[in-house]
C-alpha cells in the first residue's frame, strides 16, 4: 500500500508528489505573520523533494520503467492511480527538483502574503511531479489540470507588468490546449475500448491508423501550446514577463516541459501512425510530422528574431524560451534515437538555463535597478556595480547560446544530428536560429552589463549616492546550483544520457513496432 515499503528504492520518487502537496497544505495553514517560517519550510520541502529526485535518479540508473504505486481508482472505467518512472521521467523529475529549490531561493525576498505564495508554489511543483510520474493517462491529465490553478494565482497576485491580462491569457491558452487533449483522450479511450487508461496498454491497443491520423495532431497541438509552439506561443512571453521571478523560472523551466513531455509521452507514444505520410504533399509538406517540424523551426527562428528586437530585458529571455523550446519540438519530430534523446536533454538543459536567466534578470538585476528597459540599464554600468550579476549572466548566456562545455551544446547538437538524418533543410533553417541566438544573447549582455556609454553626470551622482543592495546568500546559492548543473551536464553528458537513451529507445520501439 505505502510505496515507501516497496522493495525498490526508486519508488521513493512518488513521495515527491505527496510531500509537495503536503507542504502546500501546511503552508496554507501557517499564520501569515511569520514569513521566515514559511520560507524555511518551503525550502525544506523543496530540498527534500530534490533529495528524493536525486535518490530516485541514482537508484534508477540502469533500470527501465519502475512502477511506484499501482492502485485501482475508478475500476469501472479502468482508471488507476498508477505512478511509474522511466528514464525520461527520472530526468525531468530531477529537473523539477532543481528548479524548485532554485525557485524558493530566488523568492526569498517575497514579502506579500509569503505563506500563500509558497503554498501555491509547492502545489504547482507537486502537480508537475505528478505529470512526470503518471503512467495512467487520466491521472496524467488530472495533474496537468491541477497545475493551471496555482499558475494563475501566482501571476495574478504576485506578478508585475499587466499581470491580470497575462494570467488570464495563460489560463485561456492552457485550457484551450487541455480541451483539445481531453477530446483526443476521450476518443482514444472509446476507440481502444479496452477498459484501461494506462499509457502502456493504450500504446499497445492498436488504434486504427485513420483514427491516429486525426487524433495525433489534436493531442499534439493541445500539449504543444504549453510548450510554446509557434503560433500558439504568445502566452509565453507575456506570462513569463508578468510572473514573479520564481514563477517565470517555473514556467520556462518546467511548465513548458509539461507540454513537451505530453507531446512525447502521449502524442507520439500513443499515436505514432499519426505521423505517417498523408500520401500527397503540399509545398513539400507531406505529413503531420512535416507540419510540426516546420512550426518548430519557425518558432526557433521567429523567437530568436523577436528576442533580438526587444527593449525589455525580460522579454528577451521570454522569447528566447520560445526559440529554445522549438529545438525540443524539432527533436521530437525527428523520431529517431539521437534526435529524441536530444529533445529530452534539451528539456532538461533549457529548464536549468532559462531558470538561471530569469533569476538573474528578474531577481538579481530588477530588484536592485527597478527597471528592465535595456536602454536604462545601458546607462547603469552594471558590470562594475553588480559584477556578480554580470558574470553570472555571462555564464548563463554562454550556456544559452550553446557554447560547448554547457548542457545546451550537447542537447542542440543531438537535435541537429537527428534532424539532419531526416531532412538537411531543417538543420539549415534551425542553424539560422542558433546564429540569431548568439546575436540576441550577446546584444542583451552588451546593453545590460557591458555598455560603452559614458554615464551622464546625473547618473554618476546617483551611483555615488546609492549603492545597490549586496548580493544575498540565496542568490549566490541558486546561481551556483543552476550554473553548476548546466556545466556538469555539458562536461559529462553521459550522466543524463545513460538514463535517457534506453528510455527513448523503448518508447520509440514501443510506438513504432
Amino acid at each position, binding site marked *: 500500500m505505502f510505496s515507501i515499503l516497496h522493495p525498490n528504492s526508486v519508488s521513493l520518487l512518488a513521495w515527491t508528489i505527496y510531500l509537495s502537496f503536503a507542504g502546500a497544505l501546511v503552508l496554507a495553514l501557517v499564520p501569515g505573520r511569520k514569513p521566515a517560517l514559511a520560507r524555511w519550510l518551503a525550502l525544506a520541502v523543496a530540498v527534500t523533494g530534490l533529495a528524493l529526485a536525486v535518490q530516485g535518479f541514482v537508484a534508477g540508473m540502469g533500470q527501465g520503467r519502475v512502477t511506484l504505486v499501482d492502485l485501482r481508482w475508478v475500476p469501472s472505467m479502468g482508471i488507476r492511480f498508477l505512478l511509474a518512472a522511466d528514464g525520461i521521467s527520472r530526468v525531468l523529475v530531477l529537473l523539477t527538483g532543481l528548479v524548485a529549490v532554485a525557485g524558493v531561493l530566488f523568492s526569498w525576498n517575497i514579502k506579500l502574503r509569503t505563506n500563500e505564495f509558497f503554498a501555491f508554489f509547492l502545489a504547482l511543483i507537486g502537480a508537475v511531479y505528478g505529470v512526470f510520474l503518471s503512467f495512467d493517462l487520466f491521472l496524467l491529465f488530472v495533474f496537468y489540470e491541477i497545475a493551471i490553478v496555482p499558475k494563475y494565482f501566482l501571476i495574478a497576485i504576485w506578478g508585475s507588468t499587466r499581470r491580470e491580462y497575462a494570467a488570464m491569457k495563460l489560463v485561456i491558452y492552457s485550457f484551450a490546449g487541455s480541451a483539445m487533449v481531453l477530446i483526443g483522450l476521450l476518443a482514444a479511450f472509446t476507440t481502444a475500448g479496452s477498459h484501461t487508461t494506462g499509457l502502456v496498454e493504450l500504446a499497445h491497443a492498436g488504434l486504427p491508423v485513420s483514427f491516429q491520423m486525426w487524433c495525433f495532431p489534436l493531442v499534439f497541438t493541445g500539449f504543444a501550446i504549453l510548450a510554446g509552439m509557434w503560433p500558439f506561443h504568445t502566452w509565453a512571453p507575456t506570462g513569463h514577463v508578468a510572473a514573479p521571478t520564481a514563477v517565470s523560472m517555473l514556467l520556462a523551466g518546467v511548465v513548458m516541459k509539461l507540454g513537451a513531455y505530453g507531446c512525447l509521452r502521449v502524442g507520439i507514444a500513443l499515436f505514432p501512425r499519426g505521423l505517417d505520410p498523408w500520401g500527397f504533399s503540399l509545398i513539400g509538406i507531406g505529413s503531420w510530422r512535416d507540419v510540426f517540424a516546420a512550426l518548430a523551426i519557425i518558432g526557433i527562428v521567429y523567437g530568436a528574431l523577436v528576442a533580438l528586437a526587444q527593449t525589455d530585458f525580460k522579454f528577451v529571455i521570454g522569447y528566447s524560451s520560445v526559440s529554445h523550446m522549438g529545438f525540443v519540438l524539432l527533436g521530437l519530430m525527428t523520431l529517431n534515437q539521437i534526435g529524441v534523446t536530444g529533445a529530452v536533454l534539451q528539456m532538461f538543459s533549457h529548464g536549468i538555463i532559462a531558470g538561471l536567466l530569469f533569476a538573474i534578470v528578474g531577481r538579481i538585476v530588477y530588484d536592485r535597478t527597478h527597471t528592465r528597459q535595456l536602454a536604462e540599464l545601458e546607462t547603469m554600468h552594471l558590470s562594475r556595480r553588480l559584477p556578480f550579476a554580470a558574470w553570472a549572466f555571462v555564464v548563463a548566456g554562454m550556456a544559452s547560446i550553446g557554447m560547448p562545455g554547457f548542457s545546451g551544446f550537447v542537447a542542440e547538437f543531438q537535435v541537429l544530428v537527428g534532424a*539532419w538524418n531526416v531532412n538537411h533543410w531543417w*538543420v539549415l533553417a534551425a542553424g539560422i536560429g542558433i546564429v540569431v541566438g548568439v546575436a540576441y544573447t550577446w546584444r542583451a549582455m552588451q546593453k545590460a552589463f557591458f555598455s560603452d556609454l559614458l554615464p551622464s553626470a546625473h547618473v554618476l551622482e546617483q551611483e555615488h549616492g546609492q549603492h545597490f543592495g549586496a548580493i544575498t546568500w540565496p542568490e549566490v546559492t541558486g546561481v551556483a546550483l543552476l550554473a553548476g548543473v548546466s556545466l556538469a551536464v555539458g562536461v559529462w553528458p553521459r550522466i543524463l544520457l545513460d538514463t535517457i537513451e534506453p528510455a527513448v529507445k523503448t518508447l520509440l520501439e514501443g510506438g513504432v513496432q
Partner: protein
Amino acid sequence: MNGFHLLTLLTVLPMVGAALALVAGKHARAVALITTFASLALALLVWIRLPINGSIGLVEQHTWAPSLGIEYHLGVDALGALMLVLAAIVTLMSVDAAHRVHHQPGLYFALVLMLEAGLFGSFTALNFFHWFLFWELCLIPAFFLIKLWGGERRGPASTQFFIYTMAGSAALLVAFLAIFVSTNSMDFPHLTLLASTGELEQMVAVHLGQTVIIWLAIGVLAGFAVKVPMFPFHTWLPAAYAEAPSPVTMLLTGAMSKMGVYGLLRIALPLFGHQIAQIRTPLLVLAVATVVMGAWAAAAQKDLKRVFAYMSVNHLGYCLLGIFALAVPAAATGTDTAAVASQSAALNGVILQMFNHGITAAALFWFVAMLQQRTGGHRGIDQFGGLRKPAPVLAGLMGIALFSSLGLPGLNGFPGEFLIFRGAFPLAWVAATVSILGLLVTAVVILTVIQKVFTGPLPEHCANFPDLHQGERMALAPVIGLMFLVGILPQLITTSVNPTVINLLAHWRF
C-alpha cells in the same frame, strides 16, 4: 597510454591558477607568474618526452559520450608540443609584461590563465568536441580582455573580434556536424585515416551528396582563415590588436593566431587535403594577397601597434603560402622525390615560422608596451625619435627583435621563412616570387620604424626617457637569447619536428 596524464595536468593547471588568481586580489599577478612558470616547465617536459619517431605520443583516451562520437582523446606530436611550448612562453611573457593592471587584477589574470588553458586544450585535443570546447574557451577570455581593459575604441573592436571569430566557429561546427552525420566519428586520427584512403569522401558523398565535401572543406578553411587571419577575413585584426592592452595583444598574435595555422595542419589538410589541392590556385592567390597586402598596409600605418599588427598578417601569410604550396595535386607529383623533399621543407618551415613569429611578435608588442609606459601612452611612429641616446639597451634589444622579424640570418625569423621559400619555390614559383615582394616591403617598414624611433632628434616628451631597468633586462634576456639560439641552431627544433613532418605528409592525400 600513460599513467602520468601529463597533458591533462598541463591543461588543468592554468584553470586552477585562474581560480586562485580570482581570489588572490593584489597577489593575482604573482599567482599568474607561478602558474605560467610551472606550465612552461610542464610544456618542456612534454617536449622532452615526445616519441622520437614523430608519431602522436602521450596519448590519453577515455570514453566520454559515445553516442555522440565524443571521446576524451589527447595526444601531441612535435607540432602540438612545439605549440604548447610556444603558448607557455608567450603567456609567461604576457604576464611578465602586464605589471600595471590596476583595474580588477584578479579577474584580468584569471582570464589570461583561462586563455592559456584554452590554448593548451586546443593544441592537445584529438577529438572535435574536445577541441572545439577549448577553441571557444579561448574566445571568451580574449573578448573580455579586450572589452574591459582595452583602449578607447575597445567596444567596436571587441564586437568585431567576437562576431568574426564566432562566424568562423559556426562554419566549423556545421562542417563537423556534417562529418559526424556521415562517418559517426569526430576523432581526428580516425578521420585522418578515413581521408587518407579516400573513404571519407565516399562516405560524405553517400550521405550528403557528391559536391558537399568541397563545401565542407571551404567551411573548415573559412573557420581557420578568420583566426589566422587570411585575406579577406583579416579586417577584425588591426582594430583588435591596436585596442587590446599590449600584453593581451602579445597573446593574440603570439599564441592565438597559431590556433588557426595549427587547425589547418591538424584538421583541414588531413581531412580535406584532396579538396584543398583542387582549389589550390585561388587559395594561393589569397595567401599571396595576405603576404603582400599585409606588408603594404603595414607601410601605411602611423600607429606602432597597427604596424606590427599588419606585419603579423604578413608573417602568417608566409605560413599560408607554405601550406597551400605543398598541397600539390597528387597527379602532378606522383612519386617524385624532389617534390616530396620540397613539401617537407615547406612544412618544416611553416612549423618553425609559427614558433618564431610567436616569439618575435610577442616581443615586439612587449616593446611597444614599454614605450607606451615611458611616454604616457604614446605609440605613433612620428611621436618618437632619437631614443638610442637615452635608452641604448632598449633600442638595442628592440632592434634585435625587429631584425628577427625582418628575417635576418642568425636570428630566429630567418630559418622558417627560408625553408618556406625553399619548399614553395619549386611547387608554386609564381606565388613564391610575388611573395618575395612582401619581404622587400617589410624590410622597408622595419627600417623605417628603426629610423624614426631610434634616430633623429629627441622629442620633448621623451626627454626623461628611462632605459630598461634591471628587472626588465632580466625578463627580456631569455627571450632575446632564444631568438639567437633558434636562429643559429634551428636543428634544436627541426630534429624533433622533421620526423613529425614526414609522418604528417605520409598521411595526407592530395
